[in-house]
């Protein structure tokens, strides 16, 4: 349904997208996971038609996305900012935004009522949006993108800065939309979100996709290893150096920054050895956590960076 081929976009010297390619099928929910500056918003903006001067191509429903304006009727986009009219109530916002698409007015009204129900705003649909809480606004922001029943829904960090209840409600909505046959791409920093919402996960950094697959497939990348997170007082370089002779011996350094590091270990019995090396170098350890393999470990392994909270 959607085929992104070798998209490249730079801002001056910054390469925001670097030959980025991706495919998406009908009904697939893809979580696009990447740290700050990975290029997520850049990708969404290009697909939304609001960024120019890039190379590469995108085909959508078998046509060139950028040469057929009517294809925009088939696409729903939820921007990172809350972009709607605070002065209007939720129902009127939906009717306004939906009215920009080629949807018959009667269908639009019916659809607006349905969507309000889906995002649990029916009860307050006649209230000016400016009285809404952050979570309610996010839900409305998301609902607007869905009004014209798009075949593809793009969401840029739909869950940023909201309470747990609203987050659950939005992720729920994304799942439902996918189950109903709409292809979804949503970007996020939050591992937990993609773990139980997506049918496929792509990890991107510096404008490229580093790995993609189902959760199980991705976790297999770290192997049957446990993850050890160490917090203390040390410099990144000193930490790496202290463990250099353990490398390959069942210990893999995933990331090391000042006072914080992560390792993958084949067995927890490696831990005493690790601590021994650190103590010998007088590197203080204040905390140590052992985790079973998860997406976070994959992410650390692939990017050497942890995600922003």
């Amino acid at each position, binding site marked *: 349904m959607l085929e992104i081929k070798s998209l490249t976009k730079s801002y001056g010297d910054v390469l925001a997208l670097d030959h980025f390619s991706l495919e998406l099928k009908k009904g697939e929910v893809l979580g696009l996971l990447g740290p700050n500056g990975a290029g997520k918003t850049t990708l969404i903006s290009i697909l939304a038609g*609001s960024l120019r001067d890039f190379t590469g191509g995108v085909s959508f429903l078998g046509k060139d996305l950028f040469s057929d304006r009517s294809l*925009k009727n088939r696409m729903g*986009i939820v921007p990172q*900012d*809350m972009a*709607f009219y605070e*002065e209007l109530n939720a129902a009127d916002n939906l009717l306004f935004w939906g*009215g*920009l698409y080629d949807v018959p007015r009667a269908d639009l009204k019916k659809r607006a009522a349905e969507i309000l129900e889906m995002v649990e705003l029916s009860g307050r649909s006649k209230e000016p949006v400016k009285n809404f809480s952050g979570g309610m606004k996010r839900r409305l922001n998301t609902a607007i993108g869905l009004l014209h029943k798009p075949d593809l829904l793009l969401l840029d960090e739909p869950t940023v800065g909201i309470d747990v209840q609203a987050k659950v409600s939005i992720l729920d909505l994304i799942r439902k939309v996918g189950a109903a046959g709409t292809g979804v791409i949503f970007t996020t920093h939050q591992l937990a979100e993609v773990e139980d919402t997506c049918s496929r996960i792509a990890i991107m950094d510096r404008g490229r996709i580093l790995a993609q697959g189902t959760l199980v497939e991705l976790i297999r990348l770290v192997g049957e290893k446990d993850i050890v997170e160490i917090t203390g007082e040390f410099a990144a370089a000193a930490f790496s150096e202290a463990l250099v002779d353990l490398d390959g011996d069942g210990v893999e350094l995933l990331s090391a920054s000042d006072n914080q590091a992560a390792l993958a270990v084949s067995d927890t019995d490696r831990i005493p050895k690790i601590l021994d090396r650190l103590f010998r170098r007088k590197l203080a350890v204040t905390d140590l956590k052992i985790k079973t393999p998860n997406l976070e470990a994959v992410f650390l392994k692939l990017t050497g960076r942890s995600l922003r909270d």
Partner: protein
Amino acid sequence: MTMKTLKRILHIAGNDLRIMVSDKVYFFWSLAFPVLFIVLFGLLYKGGGNGPAVAELTVVNRDQGRWGAYFLEKVKSPGVEIKAVDEEPEAYNRLLVLPADFSAKIEARAAQSLALKKREDASTEAAARVEARLFQAIARVISELVLYGEGDLLKFWDGHPEFRELVRVKTRFPENTVTVVPGGFDHSIPGATVQFIMMMVMIYGGVTVMEDRKKGVMGRMLFSPLSTGGLFQAKLLGRWAMGMIQALILFVVGKVFFKLDLGNVRLSLLVIAVFALAMAALSVFIGSLVGKEDLIIGLAVLLANVFAALGGCWWPIEVVPAGVRQAGMISPAYWAMDALHKLRFFQGDFAAILPHLGVLLGLSAVLSGLAARYFKIRD
């Protein structure tokens, strides 16, 4: 343009209007405040009554015959007070000199001219009253001559056309402005309308273009099949309609409460429509260039009031000295107000306001071009 595009443009423009009129303070600004201006300037520059109650006329009667004094008797009236002097004084408001051969010429039935002089800054309105009175007096003297002379007035006119031209009064007032000084509510309502179109369109129109950009609302609209050009047209149309609504509010209020007479409703609306288009373009331009609400409001209030004052929205431009009047031409409001005055006070027709329409259309084209060139959708 396809129907779908047109539909989207109307949809966006309609939504802008709806948000504007549902703002509670909107009616204060668009109705209560302008009505204050209407009443204030309507009373300050009352139509047909801004001259002194009694117009003084200084007269030097050098006539050696009897007709001069007789003529002056006829000029006397409750509204005109004659001040007889022997020599032409240095200071006067209005001055009439009857020449030595005034009677001789009348008796010889020879044509003659009288000069009515007016001090430059004396009331034009009073001068007009004096002038009208002089014409009346001339007519009376002539008719009396005729009655005593030949008997039948109507027939006499047919046979003696030269009598019509017996005495001519020469004045120095600019043509067309002698008898009418625009004033009253027929002046102050269009004045407030033009002023508040500028203010409301620039404030509401400019601020919302700026806010819609900052909030990402305009950017989001382009996720739909709408083009950038379509969005620009929608914003322009919405702001034009804001101006037209402002005009309609004040015209209806004017008609109902102040017996407003525009002279020619259709042509007046045409003038307003073209003027509103120029202001709509200006508001989109300002909204694209300026990023702060306070700044837009400040700029709008400043521009609207300076343009209003210069352009003759407050006091009729006809009462200001010629130089100031000329300077007023830099104000878009001047062209709208002058056209409206022509329609209402000077029997102007379409041809009379064509130059004004041309200037306003040209201004609209230039401002639309600038607004389109600098139209900013995202920050």
